[in-house]
């Protein structure tokens, strides 16, 4: 036994929630400061959250099917993480900046990204998928597939907001903030730690939103950390919250609180949303190799959509409302399928078009060579 074996990690912080797994309204004591934000939500807000979650799940299932049918190269399902994503992104204001990882389909779509844009990436048509500079896309940056790299981009962007005085002026309608998404696996990446160091040093207006979905492909979160991931934020000198990521209400309220503090000049903070990846890591993965059916069943009982539905039913939402949401979701998924399967390969010369912004002799030379080569093949066929 080494001396370090004696050191037990301190007790993990309580998971903050307001909606219990059974859909009852049962705020934990630590939820107290956030209840005014929860209670300010209107019936329409709650219905929007529900519609978001059901619609995105239908899209996610459709995309998974498209991959199974050979229409996509890959699909990373968001199944199970709807509440974490809907709540947090509905907490953002239009002027905020969103830096996703690669499973934030719900986040991107709610900000205005056409889901077919995400399909473009996963179908092998583009390395991007949408134009983050187009206002229609709600300041949603492109996906980043190298884990954690985007946390630094978000922090740098936040530094830019500070340097340009675009935040912290006291006007919440105008002050901008940044939210960056990453996961429990990415939390071990050095870039995440460096991003937190820089964020704390320059007091960026930033929320680090960690979806702890319990699994980094096949490795459980216990291998990434012996202690609650939310505790790491304190080490960098920033407030941290650990929330029930399957409770859309607390996800909304805590993120709203954190983003408002950020835009008010109070600096960065961290949120760990404890959730579960109900699907595979990606369509190339086989979860039966590393986790049990009983674990999956346990988390199914804590499903984010079921609990909000129960809650809404208790508040008197009508059967017609739920039917209408289901129909809309199905139509949305069908529309995505229809448009996704028509996406064709880009033209070959596009490979050379955007490697550099300024003219580059090698790009011109190789584009010319390819054109001549292809023309010579056409000539051979004739």
């Amino acid at each position, binding site marked *: 036994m080494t001396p370090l074996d004696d050191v037990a990690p301190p007790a993990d912080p309580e998971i903050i929630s307001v909606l219990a797994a059974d859909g009852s309204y049962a705020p934990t004591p630590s939820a107290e400061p956030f209840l005014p934000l929860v209670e300010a939500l209107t019936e329409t807000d709650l219905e929007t959250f529900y519609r978001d979650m059901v619609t995105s799940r239908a899209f996610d299932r459709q995309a998974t099917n498209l991959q199974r049918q050979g229409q996509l190269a890959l699909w990373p399902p968001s199944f199970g993480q709807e509440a974490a994503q809907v709540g947090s992104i509905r907490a953002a204001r239009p002027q905020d900046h969103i830096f996703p990882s690669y499973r934030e389909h719900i986040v991107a779509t709610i900000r205005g990204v056409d889901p077919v844009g995400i399909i473009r990436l996963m179908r092998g048509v*583009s*390395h*991007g998928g949408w*134009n*983050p*500079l187009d206002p229609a896309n709600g300041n949603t*940056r*492109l996906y*980043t597939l*190298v884990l954690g*790299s985007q*946390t*630094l*981009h*978000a*922090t*740098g*962007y*936040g*530094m*830019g*907001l500070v*340097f*340009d005085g675009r935040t912290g002026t006291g006007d919440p309608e105008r002050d901008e903030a940044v939210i960056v998404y990453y996961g429990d696996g990415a939390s071990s990446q*050095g*870039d995440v730690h*460096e*991003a937190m*160091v*820089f964020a704390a*040093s320059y007091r960026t207006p930033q929320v680090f939103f960690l979806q702890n979905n319990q699994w980094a492909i096949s490795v459980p979160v216990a291998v990434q950390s012996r202690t609650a991931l939310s505790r790491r934020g304190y080490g960098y000198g920033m407030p941290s919250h650990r929330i029930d990521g399957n409770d859309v209400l607390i996800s909304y309220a805590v993120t709203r609180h954190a983003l408002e503090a950020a835009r008010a000049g109070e600096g960065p903070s961290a949120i760990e949303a404890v959730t579960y990846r109900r699907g595979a890591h990606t369509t190339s993965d086989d979860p039966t190799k590393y986790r049990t059916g009983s674990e999956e069943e346990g988390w199914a009982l804590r499903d984010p959509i079921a609990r909000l539905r129960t809650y809404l039913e208790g508040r008197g939402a009508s059967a017609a409302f739920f039917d209408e949401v289901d129909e809309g979701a199905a139509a949305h998924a069908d529309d995505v399928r229809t448009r996704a399967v028509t996406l064709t390969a880009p033209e070959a010369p*596009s490979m050379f*078009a*955007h*490697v*550099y*912004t*300024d003219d*580059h*002799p*090698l790009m011109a030379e190789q584009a010319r060579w390819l054109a001549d080569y292809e023309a010579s093949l056409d000539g051979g066929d004739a």
Partner: protein
Amino acid sequence: MSDTTTLPFGKALNAGLRKALADDPRVLLMGEDIGPLGGVFRVTEGLQAEFGDRRVIDTPLAESGILGTAIGLAMAGFRPVCEIQFDGFVFPAFDQITSQLAKMTNRHEGVLSMPIVIRIPYGGHIGAVEHHQESPETYFTHTPGLRVVSPSTANDAYWMIQEAIASNDPVVFLEPKSRYWHKGEVDLEASALPLHASRIVRRGTDVTLVGHGAMVSVLLQAAALAESEGTSCEVVDVRSLSPIDYGPVLESVRRTGRMVYAQEAPGFVSVGSEVAATVAEKAFYALEAPVIRVSGFDTPFPPAKLEGVYLPDPDRILEAVDRSLAY
């Protein structure tokens, strides 16, 4: 009358950075110890005092963090100039440079530019400890999306840093650290050449010597020695390692029929290899001898007491010239 002054290479860089900061309020310098200290080589000396700590930023000690946040700052409309303290310290930022920065414009299908400069003091000749004398250029020249340049004179240092900052693409700016203290004439009015141009720096008729960075001065020494022995060497400074301006190189080789490339970096799969292959392809009938490469050995950079053996010197270059002439 043109406005010229004599400056050491490092001071010329400092003057070029000062000019870039003064000309464009979106230009930022960021790096470790670049503020009050002025960087370990004093290249940024006085700039924080002049432009403030939001234009000249002392960062936490984390290279990936420097490059990753620079990408975010570029997204927010800034033109960051990052200093990496020494060549061997750039590798913690490798993902951010090669997978993130280099591909960012491409994955954005052209709607986003990444005007970021990465300054790296590189190369040997200063008797330093491990990781402080390396020549990592090949990693970056092999990465599509990056531009790579290396000035060899004070005048080029002054102008090329400004041109690199004006580039809308990421530029890896390799500063031959052994040249920092060498003085040269700097024309403060106009740049003689664009960023990506190579240049014939000495005329000759028998053999073309080509190289970059600190090696250019070694080539010039070799050419002077060769002349005393009756061999006339032309010397070409490629200046830009990606893209390479082959015009002056090919023009020279077509006249001399012989070429030697010299570099400090290991030779296997290197800039010298690439130039040799291209010259063989494009000037085959002009060549009287194969292109010969003189490089650092394919070993880790050795302990400083052996650097004189590892680094190409005038004698090794003349040995290559003799081999070329023997064909």
